[in-house]
């Protein structure tokens, strides 16, 4: 059946071939679903304005341990800061504290929490931990973490400098350029 289809195509006149080609191209753009707009997904503006710190950096160390009562496992992720995009003071290192992690064979997986790997390059949107003010958590769970691969922000398929430029534009628009 597939071979018969190509024989049919070869038999078409040029004008009909062009119409068929345009129709197929049109199908690609109209059949593929459009991105959905969903109410509680955070926009880049919401991520940016609600975050207290935004940094580009590298994951240097991940450690996990039990809380005092041994009822929950928390992880601390040390980030070596390469560029501070938003925040009060210059920091060379930032520590993220989040629920989840592994102690021995036991893992606590928190669905939706960002997953880190040592040596990973990232851009992070952060808020201050309300219990340990010198530490942070990621805004919007995994929405606030953008992995960088080959100088591109993976999730956006965008060069890092362009992505950071967009964030700074939002900051300037909403905060008047205050840092």
């Amino acid at each position: 059946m597939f071979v018969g289809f190509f024989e049919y195509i070869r038999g078409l006149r040029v004008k009909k071939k062009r119409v068929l080609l345009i129709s197929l191209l049109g199908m690609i753009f109209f059949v593929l679903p459009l991105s959905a707009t969903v109410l509680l997904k955070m926009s880049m503006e919401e991520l940016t304005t609600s975050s207290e710190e935004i940094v580009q950096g590298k994951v240097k160390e991940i450690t996990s341990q039990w809380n005092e009562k041994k009822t929950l496992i928390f992880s601390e992720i040390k980030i070596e800061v390469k560029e501070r995009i938003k925040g009060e003071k210059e920091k060379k290192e930032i520590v993220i504290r989040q629920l989840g992690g592994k102690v021995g064979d036991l893992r606590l997986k928190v669905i939706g929490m960002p997953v880190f790997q040592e040596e990973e390059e990232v851009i992070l949107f952060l808020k201050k931990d309300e219990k340990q003010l010198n530490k942070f958590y990621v805004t919007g769970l995994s929405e606030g973490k953008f992995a960088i691969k080959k100088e591109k922000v993976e999730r956006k398929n965008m060069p890092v400098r362009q992505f950071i430029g967009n964030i700074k534009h939002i900051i300037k628009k909403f905060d008047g350029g205050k840092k």
Partner: protein
Amino acid sequence: MSFGKRLAGIVTIFLGIVCNYSFAFKLLPCKWARSDIPVDYYINYYGTPDCSGENAAIISSFNSWENVSGQYMDFTYKGPSSETYALDGTNLCVWIESGWNLYGFSSNAIAIATVWYNESTNEIIEADITFNGEHFEWSSSGESNKMDVQNIATHEIGHFLGLDDLKDSSDSEATMFWIAGWGETKKRTLSPNDQDGIRALYPGSSGPKTGEFIMEAKVSLINNLIDLSKGDTCSIGFRLFESKRIKINIYTIDGELVKDLADDVYGEGDHWVFWSGKNDAGNKVGAGIYLVKLNFTDKIYKIALVK
């Protein structure tokens, strides 16, 4: 390049995009061991102050997954619990009304499922579901300006049993799609892809399930065959979503009443009654086929007694 080659290229790209555009389902790296099924779960007795009926909504959510055909996952609601969010041997559904951010949970997270598992066996040890009561108002009836309990619970229970989020926009109609909206109720109904997910995790049949009735016979032999000489008993279970008067009677094959097994008001949840092969007078009945009738279903169940 000839027209035919260009066309083949376009078709290939198109098919490639379509075929790689969405996942039917995604699995977590863990699941429940068969020996742990049915999985018990509890609901914190404070519930949510925003609405009533949240317990029934959560139970309905668990039932949605359980009632998928061709899989053996089973849940048992054990009732309200005073436990809080922690590793404590209790699979708990609980609202957090304050301190949501203390766990590192973002304010826009409507609910969170957490799964404890052994990484060497990938078996789930405990799973808990927390609902964000601090930043969201809840409804059990799909009110437009609130979060619907059953909608969100059905999604989180997907994680509870071992499914991961779907994030592609082409999966937006699936229960396991990671974004929800105000007043949304579509996640209450499992899509074919969601059903395929639970079948992939727990393939096979789980046995008879009709309506609200579950029947399990504790036997030495297979099926509903009770060997009285070995002290077997027949266990008859039923699940209620609201308080109800339940009558369960045992009859001979000729319709003669043998045992008035239950005649009482039972509350919401799972209940069990047992028959040890004795009649109302306390005497052991003879070997043969007996019929179990319940007042809330037309189905009649058979038990075979042997000595």
